């Protein structure tokens, strides 16, 4: 776990003010010939306000997802753009990813969409083998950190115990969000955020590795995981969603009420050892050599 949840903070603003990371854009060198080097933003460790995934309860009642000040402990490489259709097609050509219908092998500039978590994971494993680096889907926390001001989280719904009032408030909030056109847009269409990461929260929702959890907040403020379902993963984008890992199209895979994701895609991340860890490793190597 590279992220540690510390304390529930009273104000999200305080945590936001402590954001300290700067994006370092570094085109990657030395990738194998059959892997087009992805542009990468390197995020430095820092604090951020975060709402963990899952449904929360306290004293037997559903509550809004609590916000916590959370820390990214090690530098994180994030693909500036989502994985492209051409990149995915190379994985298909290498017989490492399932073939998908709407993938144009020439589209270096369009995100692959209509991918399930399973295909995204197959791609990540292939890409990691090709590069020799630990590329993988981000956790929800990592996605939120990379998304910075584009991270919407789970806005408070309605206070009180009344189940129907919460339900209707959530329905109203979802209904107020304008539906986006489905056509995948060229990279850069939705702009870059303050961390230099492009097209976050556009019309592509991105798979994360975080499993659905049901959590209870105890009187002490501690959070306890009651149940976990890893057949369902958190999707991040304009709003957070949970989706079964085999679904490729959330619009027709969703339920009768609620705001579906327009497209399902993904980008990968790669953790770098922290400066201290790197130094320790170097020292270790030095001693080993002696």
């Amino acid at each position: 776990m590279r992220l540690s949840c510390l304390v529930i903070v009273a104000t999200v603003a305080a945590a936001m003010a402590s954001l300290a990371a700067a994006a370092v854009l570094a085109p990657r060198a030395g990738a194998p010939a059959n892997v087009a080097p992805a542009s990468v933003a390197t995020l430095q460790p820092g604090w951020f306000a975060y709402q963990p995934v899952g449904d929360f309860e306290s004293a037997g009642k559903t509550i809004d997802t609590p916000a916590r000040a959370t820390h990214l402990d090690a530098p994180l490489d994030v693909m500036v753009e989502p994985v492209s259709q051409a990149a995915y097609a190379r994985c298909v050509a290498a017989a490492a990813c399932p073939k998908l219908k709407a993938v144009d092998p020439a589209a270096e500039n369009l995100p692959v969409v209509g991918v399930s978590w399973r295909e995204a994971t197959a791609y990540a494993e292939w890409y990691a083998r090709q590069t020799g680096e630990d590329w993988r889907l981000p956790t929800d926390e990592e996605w939120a950190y990379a998304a910075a001001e584009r991270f919407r989280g789970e806005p408070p719904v309605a206070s009180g115990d009344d189940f129907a009032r919460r339900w209707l408030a959530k329905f109203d909030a979802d209904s107020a969000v304008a539906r986006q056109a489905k056509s995948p847009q060229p990279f850069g269409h939705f702009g870059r955020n303050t961390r230099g990461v492009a097209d976050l929260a556009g019309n592509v929702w991105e798979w994360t590795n975080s499993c659905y959890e049901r959590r209870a907040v105890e009187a002490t403020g501690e959070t306890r995981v009651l149940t976990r379902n890893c057949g369902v993963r958190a999707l991040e984008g304009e709003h957070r969603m949970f989706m079964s890992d085999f679904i490729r199209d959330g619009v027709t895979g969703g339920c009768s009420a609620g705001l579906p994701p327009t497209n399902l895609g993904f980008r990968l991340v790669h953790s770098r050892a922290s400066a201290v860890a790197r130094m320790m490793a170097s020292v270790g190597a030095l001693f080993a050599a002696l």
Partner: protein
Amino acid sequence: MFNRRDLFLAAGAAAGAAAVLKAAPAMAEEAANLPRREVELVAPPLVHPHEQATRRGPEVVAFKMTIVEKEQVIDDDGTKIHVFTYNGSIPGPLMVVHEGDYLELTLVNPKTNAFDHNIDFHASTGALGGGALTHINPGEEVTLRFKATRAGVFIYHCAPEGPMIPWHVALGMNGAVLVLPRDGLTDGAGKPLKYDRIYYVGEQDFYVPRDASGAYKTYDSAADSFVDMTALMRGLIPTHVVFNGAVGALTDKNALPAKVGETVLIIHSSAMRDTRPHLIGGHGDYVWLMGKFANVPLRDLETWIVPGGSAVAALYTFRQPGVYAYLNHNLIEAVFLGATAHFRVDGKWDDDLMTQVRRPGPIA
């Protein structure tokens, strides 16, 4: 004049009813001497203001509809087709009269349109439901009057000739007429039934041709789409089955509002295909199964049927707040093809009707 009650009293048998019908005056002049009322139509799911029961005598109720040929987005992906509409909406507006009234419609086909159209009222008697008397070319208008002799909900639709008939209807040219009993709705045993709100849901099947890559094709005009679309229609499998003209026309921010304790009359029409409405989390308290008020309504239904080519009325009093999906319970059509609406119901939750005894959690 006669009304539904007279029909019941006359005999309660077909022969008796026929005798009353024969005795009714058939003079065309009668309508000319009746009071005349002009009614402004509104787009569905709303319905123009009307009395449920009326003390007034029969009158001529005059409506005007303009035929609008236009392009319309029919799903969330932005799929666009050329549609034909009565008054700009799919379905066309609901026209409400009382049994014994004369429904008078002026139908306008503006010069800017490309096709000839007409209207066949299932509520009317003779001349192909008025279809034979209402054929109008672009730049023409026509006025038809018919006597509303039967109480119920009835569809109307365009019925030009040959393959134009299903094509015009599949492009959206259908709507409904509500002929209320003069004394209002009853449960069939003398208890009056009233509604606080009325909504009109028109179920529409669309057949959008695809290109070689599987993407929906677009056409420069309706005429250009005719060959491909009618070929697809022969396969009888729609690409879209929607409520009120487009996927999502009655969901989310377009949800139908209601309150706990309110009674809602839902009119559901389907011009071509059979369908089966269901209110998730609710019921049909009273459903006039084939949509005709001379029959006793069925009670406490979970799902009801609307035969293609008809409309049905269902009455429900909301008892719990929350979101209700109202859909075609062929869930494939509801979820994949679009036949879903939402009711958004405010009010106080009734723990007696339902309660979550134990929250979801680990198995003890």
